[in-house]
């Protein structure tokens, strides 16, 4: 048998295949297709201190090999999550990770402190890379100074596993990765969506209510892979690879480039059972290549 287990700081994952925040709801929706305990972990829908209605419709535009979204962190706020959603999902037998958002450092801290009280949430993913909100979000993730401040303050407030989700909308992603590592992040996950745009030529109108939105899907995979490779070479903490992973082969490419684990996201919209196919595909690959453990793949790029 092959060993699929992976460790991300204090998190023990049964396999490296996790579900990306904003693409798997609060785990229940994917659990309606298959037993969610089979995946390595679930990054829950981005959560803020207060209720957010998100952006206006339309929020989505299909693109070549991908899609743009401008959801804008619609969620009912952390207290609603704690009172109504958490009790329903807390016993899923897989790590549930809250994706923490804020428009100010103070909001990030408040959400973190509330989530810290939850026994069955072993980690948070600090989202400093959402491109669809007017305040906060990506603003923190595109400057070393912003990333430094919010990571430092949240680290002070939180002793469980802290993962920071990075934005690709920067000149040098390794610079941001090194800064958050320096402030005590236990892992980095990358990448969030690329800022993009779509126009309806017939009407001359933007296809998104917000004009710009985040691009995801296979269209961004080579860019994501490059960034994962760069960051894995620049930091010592484990890297979680995200960006257009549609199948096992894509996932394996990210592991070889330096990721310890991966998240599949937009692929779930097309195929909600894709995580199972990726897990099986990784197993087959390890057997075919006579590897005992998936960790042997991480950073094994032949140069």
């Amino acid at each position, binding site marked *: 048998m092959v060993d699929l287990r992976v460790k991300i700081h204090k998190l023990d994952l049964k396999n490296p295949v996790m579900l990306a925040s904003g693409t798997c709801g609060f785990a229940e*929706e994917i659990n309606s297709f298959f037993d969610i305990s089979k995946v390595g972990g679930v990054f829950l829908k981005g959560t803020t201190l207060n209720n957010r209605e998100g952006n206006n419709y339309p929020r989505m535009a299909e693109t070549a090999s991908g899609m743009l979204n401008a959801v804008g962190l619609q969620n009912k706020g952390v207290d609603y999550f704690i009172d109504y959603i958490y009790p329903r999902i807390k016993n899923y037998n897989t790590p549930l990770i809250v994706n923490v958002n804020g428009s100010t450092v103070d909001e990030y801290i408040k959400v973190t402190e509330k989530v810290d009280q939850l026994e069955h949430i072993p980690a948070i993913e600090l989202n400093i890379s959402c491109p669809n909100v007017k305040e906060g979000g990506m603003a923190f993730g595109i400057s070393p100074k912003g990333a430094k401040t919010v990571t430092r303050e949240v680290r002070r407030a939180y002793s469980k596993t802290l993962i920071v989700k990075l934005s690709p909308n920067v000149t040098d992603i390794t610079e941001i990765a090194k800064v958050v590592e320096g402030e005590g992040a236990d892992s980095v996950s990358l990448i969030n969506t690329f800022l993009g745009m779509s126009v309806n030529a017939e009407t001359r109108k933007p296809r998104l209510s917000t004009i710009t939105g985040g691009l995801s899907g296979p269209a961004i995979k080579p860019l994501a892979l490059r960034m994962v490779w760069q960051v894995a070479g620049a930091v010592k903490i484990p890297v979680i690879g995200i960006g257009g992973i549609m199948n096992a082969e894509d996932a394996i490419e990210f592991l070889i480039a330096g990721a310890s684990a991966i998240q599949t996201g937009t692929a779930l919209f097309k195929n909600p059972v894709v995580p199972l196919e990726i897990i099986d595909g990784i197993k087959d690959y390890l057997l075919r290549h006579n590897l005992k453990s998936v960790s042997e793949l991480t950073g094994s790029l032949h140069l």
Partner: protein
Amino acid sequence: MEKRFVDDFLVIDNIQLNENSFLVRMFAPKPLPEIKAGQFVNAEIKDCREIFLRRPFSVFDIDYSNNYLSIIVKILGRGSNQLARVIKGDTISLIYPLGRSFTYPSEHEKILFIGGGSGVAPMLFLAKDCGLPRDNVDLIIGARTFEDHINVNDYNGYGKFHFTTDDGTYGFEGLVTEHPLMKKNLSSFDKIYACGPLSMMKAVAAEAVKKDIFCEVSLENSMACGFGVCLCCIEPTKRGNLCVCTEGPVFNIKDLKW
């Protein structure tokens, strides 16, 4: 949460209904779960790389004995254009069953369906599935012109049909909301169901509100996932922004901010 599935269906046949509409009948690889009128599937042609996302379609018919599920594909853009061209033996992947169904009428109620375009599919399904006698069911089906109407002869036993065309080439000349049944007899109905172009549904809803009659509409907001995770298909409602795919696609007009 109810169980959902993603499976490959085999195309049994594809019958052209009019210039832009196609009736696609598919065989399910395993026994179909109960599916009610108003629910939908999210479809993609297997291994089609040109279209990235799936396309949602109301279920038009279920044949549990043969394990067939049918949809009506109306060509609106690139995705539906691809799906309209499938032939016997092709494979379509469906995510199903999705969304909430219409509130089925109770016995003895008199109901009115108002449909246009691809909105005819869930109307006919509900007329057939609701179990009411023919006399209790009226359907107003609207189209631009005679050629845009589809043949509904198989459904004559389930309700009394009334047709409208914008140009008067078939049935009543004018919009569905101008039909005499809407103008004079609306109060005789207990429930109204509408599915079709947004402007049509809004006009129907306005009449229903005036007469204080129960009215449900089925919305067609564009969506990515179809099962409530992408949060792209939202409709502003009195309960906040709700996903059309999971909280709808059927909404009581009292919940909408129309």
